[in-house]
């Protein structure tokens, strides 16, 4: 029974992705070694976000998944952003 619809990612694509991820790791370490205050946590989180996006897209194959699943994943991050926003508004104005 043919029930296999999953995309097969080539080895070299995966190897390239991991090289970019490792480069971004060293970029995070070097950026945060300069003491830039609030700026450095923003940069560290932005880089972590890019790395997370790459893992979801290539390693977790979201690039080749159905639109439904991609929307579901995006919605979880939107939901989380809303939770964080509401919590901080609560803390800022109590």
């Amino acid at each position, binding site marked *: 029974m043919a029930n296999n619809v*999953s995309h097969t990612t080539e080895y070299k694509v995966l190897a390239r992705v991991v090289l970019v991820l490792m480069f971004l790791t060293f970029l995070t370490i070097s950026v945060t070694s300069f003491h830039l205050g609030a700026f450095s946590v923003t940069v560290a989180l932005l880089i972590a976000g890019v790395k997370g996006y790459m*893992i979801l897209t290539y390693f977790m194959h979201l690039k080749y998944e159905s639109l439904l699943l991609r929307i579901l994943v995006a919605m979880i991050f939107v939901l989380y952003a809303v939770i964080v926003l509401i919590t901080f508004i609560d803390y800022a104005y109590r």
Partner: protein
Amino acid sequence: MEVHRDDEASKLGMWLFIFTELLLFGGLFLVYSVFRAQYPANFHEGSLELSVTIGTINTIALLFSSMTIAMALSAIQKNNRILSMRLIAVTLLMATVFLFNKYIEWSMKFEHGLYPGSPLMPHLERGDLMFFSLYFFMTGLHALHIIVGMVLLTMCYFKIKSGNLNFQHYIHLENGALYWHLVDLIWIFLFPLLYLIT
């Protein structure tokens, strides 16, 4: 008789479970953010106590293991059983390196009297107490996920060996790999937030 199988549904189920995991760690990151905003100086001093070198080695080990498990899935899809099993073995080796480093790291903290429930902990400043409590809880919960991932991937290894997991039926490895990438994804945020606070 053909047993009914729905790989799409299995994968969707795995993703739904991943969503709950993301929100579980998301809650902890939220607690972290609130207390970091309240005690920025204590969190900075606390992070200086952690070894960036060990953290970096562990980040590289996890990123590399994420690649090898993704390759293991590609290998089984191409019907290359031996390569797939070897790549799972490399992934498990990287996971062991990660846990060994975590053991070294935690031992160093324990030697200084820092561990959950230690006599020293209640005498710390509130900010320091929050940093180290969150450090132990978040890295501890993450390490528990590493162990669970290792069990899942070991099961996949033996299923490939016995032939139950093959190029026509690889959903267990696909879901196991998704779980492993999740563990990597969480670490990508834990590393800068715990080790690289300025």
